[in-house]
């Protein structure tokens, strides 16, 4: 029997959130946490969670597992200490059970204008890029916006309205670093602010949490050095 403790919250019940103990007859070999959560849901449909691709690509099943933010679908059950405690991502309003309201996260993501800005006339063919310039995007483009990093960041917990957070800043860097993007100066202006960028204190929870092995702290450091460079 595998033991789980699941965070349950049902806003219509009028009751406080509580931890529910669940036992499952499940062989953990080769299975992921998502398999277990779906097995629980097959018994009790009222357990609510987001999920889609079940292979670590869509980023919708990020949850807090034994204190760490992870994607349920690529977290092997055999690696987890029991009882496995599963909670919603911290620092965001809980809608129900394991589902949080991601709007504060998306709002910060939108604020960095996550698209290519280039007002040159449209070329006949694609906007080309050298392999070396393309390589600059490695480690930045792979982000799947699962929010594991941003919701593990104490600076974001403290200032979700004003601090862009690691995911948004990593994406800001992704467009600053893109040789095809022409809005670097405006992008840097948009971040030169005691809160939007400089609330990052280099705690590096984001690096520890990222299920794709990315390093938002390093990207934030690169943005900071560009800001210093343009001053001197």
């Amino acid at each position, binding site marked *: 029997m595998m033991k789980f403790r699941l965070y349950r919250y*049902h*806003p*219509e019940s009028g009751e406080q959130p509580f931890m529910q103990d669940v036992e499952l007859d499940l062989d953990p070999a080769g299975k992921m946490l998502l398999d277990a959560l779906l097995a629980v*849901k*097959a018994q*009790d*449909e*009222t357990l*609510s*969670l*987001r999920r889609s691709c079940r*292979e*670590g*690509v869509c980023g919708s099943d990020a949850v807090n597992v034994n204190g760490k933010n992870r994607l349920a679908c*690529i977290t092997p059950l055999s690696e987890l200490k029991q009882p496995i405690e599963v909670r919603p991502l911290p620092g965001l309003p809980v*809608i*129900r059970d394991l*589902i949080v309201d991601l709007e504060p996260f998306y709002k910060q993501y939108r604020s960095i204008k996550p698209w290519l800005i280039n007002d040159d006339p449209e070329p006949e063919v694609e906007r080309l890029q050298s392999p070396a310039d393309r390589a600059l995007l490695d480690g930045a483009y792979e982000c799947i916006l699962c929010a594991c990093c941003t919701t593990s960041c104490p600076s974001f917990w403290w200032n979700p309205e004003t601090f862009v957070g690691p995911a948004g800043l990593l994406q800001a860097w992704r467009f600053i670093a893109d040789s095809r993007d022409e809005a670097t100066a405006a992008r840097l202006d948009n971040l030169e602010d005691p809160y939007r960028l400089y609330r990052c204190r280099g705690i590096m929870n984001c690096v520890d949490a990222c299920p794709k092995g990315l390093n938002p702290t390093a990207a934030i450091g690169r943005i900071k050095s560009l800001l210093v460079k343009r001053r001197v």
Partner: protein
Amino acid sequence: MERYAPHAKDLAGRDVVARAIALEIAEGRGCGPRGDYVELKLDHLGEKTIAEKLPGIRELAIRFAGVDPVKAPIPVAPTAHYMMGGIPTNLHGQVVAPARFGPEEPVPGLYAVGECACVSVHGANRLGGNSLLDLVVFGRAAGRHMQEYLLDNPYPRPLPEHAAEASQARLARWDRPGSERVAAITGDLRRMMQTHAGVFRTDAVLRAGLDKLNQLEDRLAHAGLQDTSRVFNTARIEALELENLIGVARATLVSALNRTESRGAHTREDFPARDDEHWLKHTLYSREGDQVDAKPVRLKPLTVESIRPKERVY
């Protein structure tokens, strides 16, 4: 793959590779204790190429199969992965339907793009890059067409009086209690389609699949939700999705049964040859009475030289 596609080998079309794997497994040459997969060897590409060109594949293989393709082969087997049919559209992304003035009349203001749509440029196959064309090219074309359409039609058209009733009835149906569980039916539907609408099909196998689908539909009528919450009710979403999946499964089985030839990913063991004389046409399925019609294939290109359709040889 030398046996199946001597020139293109592993780079042959996905349908060809899927059939080759299915045959190897069926003839007892599969790998593993149950002989139910074959091995995809990539190590000859070298770590650098694999890391640069196939980082996603490598990550998936390590995570789910516990195999690093740099060192060892990846276990693989054919599975369903993409819906090749869809809501018929023209090249502007406008949904088309047979109506008064012809077989492909646009439905005003209704668009479909991506995997739900069928622009009918890919024929009966799913090859690498199909979904990119569907999204990038036709997504853009649809966006442009919508802009133009909105210039001429800036105001919403008045809705018919009872427009919301069908949708409300679909929702209300799930307030009714029932003994069958949605998750159980969904699992059985998945297994049924894998068995009856998989890589190789015959009249008998498809008909047996339709019988089982009818049984699943009977069970669906007796299904009910344990969760009646109005807040983020994913059980209800899954119930509605199951209804949609049953519809898609029916369209797939009926269309496959109707098409008595083999083409692309549709392989009929009882009709192994491609038959351009009778079947160079798209299947158009309507739910009402399981009706199957044909939609013409456009062979006249707009801007480039025409390529005559012919048998594929790899």
